[in-house]
């Protein structure tokens, strides 16, 4: 968590930790209160209950505070998401075909690969196309995902910050070998990428 693999980690993990923090605090509060009440107001210790019908002030408090909290969570999530939808105009575009059960990456110069090779620190835009059923391109380490649907032009973008090898999974159920529809993403330095991009062979990196 809070790695720097892609440009969206900070937003996604940030909103996660934000909601997790509030949730844990409230969960602990609720659980402790339940246990405390069960012990303190046990029938042996407290045979005489007190019928309290309610308290409007409390009701208002525990309606207003959660409302403020969830609107905050909503905004934090929306803020991060907006960034995910705004691909820069100069992004390097790669076409992706999803099919049962493999990924195919087609570069602007016509190069076709079964693994995704991208230069680091440069916006990359993937144009997603399905050749058969629904798929979903998912790069867990980058915190991004987008469904790949026939007859629908979906796309996603990211910047790989650090060189490395990452998993690409299919996240939308697509039949028999859905769980094997994995590929790899190689994030490499620009000069290394240029060399690979202009070479005739596809597989230099896959064999590494």
């Amino acid at each position, binding site marked *: 968590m809070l790695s720097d693999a892609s440009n969206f980690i900070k937003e996604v993990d940030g909103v996660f930790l934000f909601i997790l923090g509030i949730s844990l605090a409230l969960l602990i509060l609720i659980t402790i209160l*339940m246990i405390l009440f069960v012990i303190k107001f046990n029938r042996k210790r407290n045979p005489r209950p007190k019928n309290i019908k309610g308290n409007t002030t409390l009701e208002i408090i525990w309606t207003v505070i959660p409302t403020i909290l969830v609107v905050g969570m909503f905004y934090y999530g929306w803020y991060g998401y907006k960034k995910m939808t705004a691909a820069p105009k100069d992004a390097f575009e790669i076409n992706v075909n999803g099919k049962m059960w493999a990924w195919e990456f087609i570069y602007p110069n016509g190069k076709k690969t079964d693994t995704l090779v991208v230069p680091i620190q440069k916006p990359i835009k993937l144009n997603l196309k399905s050749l058969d059923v629904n798929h979903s391109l998912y790069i867990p380490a980058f915190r991004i995902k987008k469904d790949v649907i026939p007859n629908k032009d979906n796309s996603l973008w990211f910047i790989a910050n650090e060189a490395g090898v990452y998993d690409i999974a299919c996240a939308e159920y697509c039949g028999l070998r859905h769980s094997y529809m994995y590929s790899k993403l190689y994030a490499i330095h620009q000069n290394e990428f240029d060399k690979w991009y202009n070479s005739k062979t596809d597989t230099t990196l896959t064999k590494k």
Partner: protein
Amino acid sequence: MTAINVHTGDNGSNGNHLDYLHSPKKYKGIFNWIFSTDHKKIGILYLISMLTFFAVGVVFGFLMRLELISPGKTIMEPQTYNQIFTLHGVIMIFLFIIPGLPAVFGNFFLPIMIGAKDVAFPRLNLLSWWLFVIGGFVALISLFLPGGPADTGWTFYIPYSVRTSTNVIPALIGAFILGFSSILTGLNFITTIHRLRAPGMSWFKMPLFAWSLYATGWVQILATPIVGITLLLVAIERWFGVGIFDPALGGDPIVYQHLFWIYSHPAVYIMILPAMGVISEIIPVYARRTIFGYKFIAYSSMAIALFGSLVWAHHMFTVGMSNTAMWLFSLLTFLVAIPSAIKVFNWVATLYKGSIVLEPAMLFALAFIFNFTIGGFTGLMQGALALNIHIHDTSFIVAHFHYVMFGGTGFGIFGALHHWFPKMFGRMYNKKVAKIAWVFLFIGFQLLYFPLFIAGYLGMPRRYYDYLPEFHIWHFISTVGSWILITGLIIMFTNLIIALRKGEKAVANPWGGVTLEWTIPSPPIHENFEKIPVVEKDPYDYTHYEELEEVKN
């Protein structure tokens, strides 16, 4: 609550009437049951059929977990796994969780709790059960057809569901029939609540379980037809080649997803609302005090039904919707959390200054609050757009909805079973064994589902037959948890089944409840009341316990 004395647990004498299990019979043997229009017998019929389907669903779940105990093939082929997780979902959702509380406990207790002799349309009620059983068998018939059961997941997403060679159509027809069963039950309950409340039982004197069934009924009536229409559209597409959903015919698969979730998201509230109603019944009884914030709990059920119908597209945050749709559905999703939070706070406040005894049903209610709170908070995480993109369609979601559906509604059903068992069957189970079962269920549940949150956040997609080695530890813990959970289920049901025959005779009011069902004998007589009660007090009026002790002191 009524003129009838509820302070003492009398011996459940039936007066001049026989209880519903022994009342004069119109038909012989099993026909006395399957043609009975008595709401209590229909409730028991639902209970038996629902638990049968539940057992099948548990077996499938157990097999899935066993397959996932380690990477690679363990006990089955990927095709089998895909069919099993589909069946597990279809059975658990349509045949267990949806009918679980309304059709079983709603049927049995709604008329009693509002002081009625039966539901408004008893024969329609019997028809609902028949449709339920027929729908269930149609859905399961594919097990025995060439090609085998559907392998599409319970969502039947197009285009995969039109391309697979497995038997999708029987499952869809089954769901269609089951939909009518659900609609008719909802209609019946709404009418019953509007027309058959006992004299003096105003809307705000109704028990909260009745309120939750009322909210549920509206969702059943308004949302369920959409899944029927969707199925008809699929049929038209397949038979006449009209492109509606299938992209190969120029259709739009996203429209299918919208229509599917316009029903199936509200269906989630059909599943959880009655469970919330049960918790609102259980807590005051074992805390011996009035519920905190009655009106807020009642209104929040209606708010959940209303808002819950407007959030369906949060199941589709990764399909590529416009930014406007995204923020709107995200915001609405967050807002629906508020009435749920209000309920939780009110339940916890109801424990304050109560006189609490931890009977089995109360333990299930407290576990419900804990599990449902975790399910709710992880739901908030998925409502946040940026975060949703990462955890969408991972095992995080699987953990989340099991926390709500099983840890919530499932535990609610178990709680209802232990709370009302003596009333329904006139026998008491072994409480100690029930508590032991609860410990197994609670611990097994946490071990089974919590690791899936972690694996999901680390990038484990859902509906995977196989997985990367880095997820092994989480799957392993989860599978071990499933064994503990199933042990708990076996202990719990064995205990209850033994109690059916050998349990001590139950008194009319073993827990000291004050709602109307505790004022009549256990088991109740045919048509419930010798004389329709006149309701004067609030539904959770426990003031006599204060007075009672005052006198003693």
